[in-house]
């Protein structure tokens, strides 16, 4: 079976830099309101915090210079996008209900309309970078992050794409934190491609358990659906063998080994 390698990674936890957490930017990562520092000002109007953080992480994982794209991302066509997030648009949904009940539908901004659909994060990434491959949101609770990593790799192994961008993100707005106490805003992105070089960091199989599974490195707490992607991105940044785990008592636990390998092209 084809092996899938991590060819890019970014950890984007607002306020944290590479001093605080492996894989983070050299300067403290931009919060949603400062996303223009990474992305440029264009195209951020009415974008939710989760979408902004996801775009920042994607931008950094692709090692693009800050600001607006000056040329298309190479290989954008047919690139897949798999996003892990559970609470990205709950604040918008509640806000729209408050507005329409209080003042009628004309109080609602049409610019917000796309955010009523939960897959807005992935489609925003596709739109900005021109990724026309499979594009979906995984929202299976606390294991969503590793579920998304596993499905992003599966899209490559089944020939659906040559490259998957996998992003994990949760916001920390009032609605999201009421539903999920202790939640912190965080995003991470990894770029997955078939292993073709002499060495690389590869993903192992996903395992599940009702009993607790633990990561072998430190992960910031409270990142819920983003945790699995965050862990894989940190492991890739460390460049060491690690087990990444996520989950909770309700949703069970998932774990995946991330391993540095040396191989010979064509023999693996």
């Amino acid at each position, binding site marked *: 079976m084809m092996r899938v390698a991590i060819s890019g990674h970014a950890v984007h936890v607002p306020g944290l830099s590479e001093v605080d957490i492996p894989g983070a930017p050299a300067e403290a990562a931009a919060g949603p309101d400062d996303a223009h520092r990474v992305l440029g000002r264009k195209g951020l109007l009415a974008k939710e915090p989760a979408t902004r953080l996801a775009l920042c992480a994607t931008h950094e994982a692709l090692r693009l210079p800050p600001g607006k794209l000056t040329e298309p991302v190479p290989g954008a066509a047919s690139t897949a996008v798999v996003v892990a997030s559970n609470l990205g648009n709950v604040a918008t949904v509640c806000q729209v209900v408050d507005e329409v009940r209080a003042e009628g539908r004309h109080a609602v901004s049409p610019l917000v309309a796309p955010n*009523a659909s939960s897959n807005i994060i992935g489609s925003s990434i596709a739109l900005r970078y021109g990724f026309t491959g499979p594009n979906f949101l995984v929202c299976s609770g606390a294991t969503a992050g590793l579920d998304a990593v596993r499905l992003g790799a599966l899209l490559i192994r089944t020939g659906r794409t040559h490259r998957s961008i996998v992003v994990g993100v949760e916001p920390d707005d009032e609605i999201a934190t009421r539903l999920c106490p202790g939640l912190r805003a965080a995003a991470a992105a990894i770029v997955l491609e078939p292993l073709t070089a002499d060495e690389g960091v590869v993903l192992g199989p996903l395992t599940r358990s009702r009993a607790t599974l633990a990561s072998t490195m430190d992960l910031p707490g409270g990142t819920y659906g983003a945790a699995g992607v965050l862990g894989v991105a940190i492991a890739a940044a460390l460049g060491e063998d690690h087990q990444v785990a996520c989950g909770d008592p309700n949703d069970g636990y998932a774990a995946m080994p991330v391993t540095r390998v040396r191989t010979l092209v064509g023999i693996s």
Partner: protein
Amino acid sequence: MTAPNPVAVTGTAMVTCLGDDDETFAALLAGRSGVSRLSNVDGETLGVTHGYPIEDGPERQLRPSGWLADVVARAAAAAGLDPATRRVAVVVGSGLRELRSVERWHADGAELSLPDLHFDAAVRSVLPDVTEVLTISNACSAGGYALAVGMDLLAADEADAVVVAATDTMTESMLAMIGRVGDEPVTAVAPFDADRGGVLLGDGAAAVVIEPAADLDEPRPLIRSVGLSCDAFHETAPDRDGIVAAMRDAHDRAGIEPGGIDLVLAHGTGTALNDPTESAALASVFGSDGPRITGIKGATGHTSGGAALMSLLVAIHAMRTGVVPAITGLRTPLDEAAGLGLVVGSPEPAAARIAQVDAFGFGGVNAVTLVEVGMSELASESVSQGDRERLARACEGES
């Protein structure tokens, strides 16, 4: 690219505003619509007064979870699945998840806990021993995307059987958006009609059980492929090129030429943009002598993530019985659909062996499914001798 191993559909179930599977098929053939005035929300304030709701009493929390549990249990029973002895995975697609329950929790003080937002507990209430429950959310193509993920899990030998399901109810926030951008309230969905007014949402859920066809003795409908694409064109508007890419991906993955497709279950939402865009895509892919085209949303409303699987079940039923329902609500086709084989007015007899099911969603996410019903399953009384010979030749040509 080599064609994926076909997977067989071994169990199905659905629930719509029209009723269960058989009631929905019967209503489609009779041209009966499930449209009604919305009672759970303030339609006048929202600017959306009508929809295709499942009328099951006073509104309560977690209705999509309940419909999901029902269709998953029925489909699994029909397939004779035993998750205790085989690796059975479940993939749930949903456009709006349990966001209606989030709205009622926030604005009306209804109860909700975090895990309710996805569908693990709902599935495990009826199938406790499944290996995993994956919830994916992809607007109005979620069911088609879930089917693609299910096929990929089988192809990678990560499951022995997969229950693919989808469920949705309308949210107040999405209704507000539809009302906000619409000109005037719509009272029915009229897919591909020159006078179509726009889309209305519907409630419902559907499930299919898929297994590797090689494992089975008796003939079953085969999922030949699911093609996926993203337009990367606009947040809400569809794009012909992206839709065509998903259709061609489905055809290429199955190794089937457009001429081998006998029937299309269109996405057909009755909006200003979808129907001409889908018409242009169908004309571009199939040319002037294309397949018969029908669709369900004039009868069921737009059931969001559930729509792809409901259309799939209707396609299988139409091929098995040899009768294709007309597009409920369609009277005068729009100009862009002039050369297409839309089924208008009354059901048509058709000898169809391979059907294409279209599903497109917000964000330009497209999923196109090809499903095949074998010769031995075709209803003999409804297929003429000439059609049987044509289909037999087609079968030989592909084997």
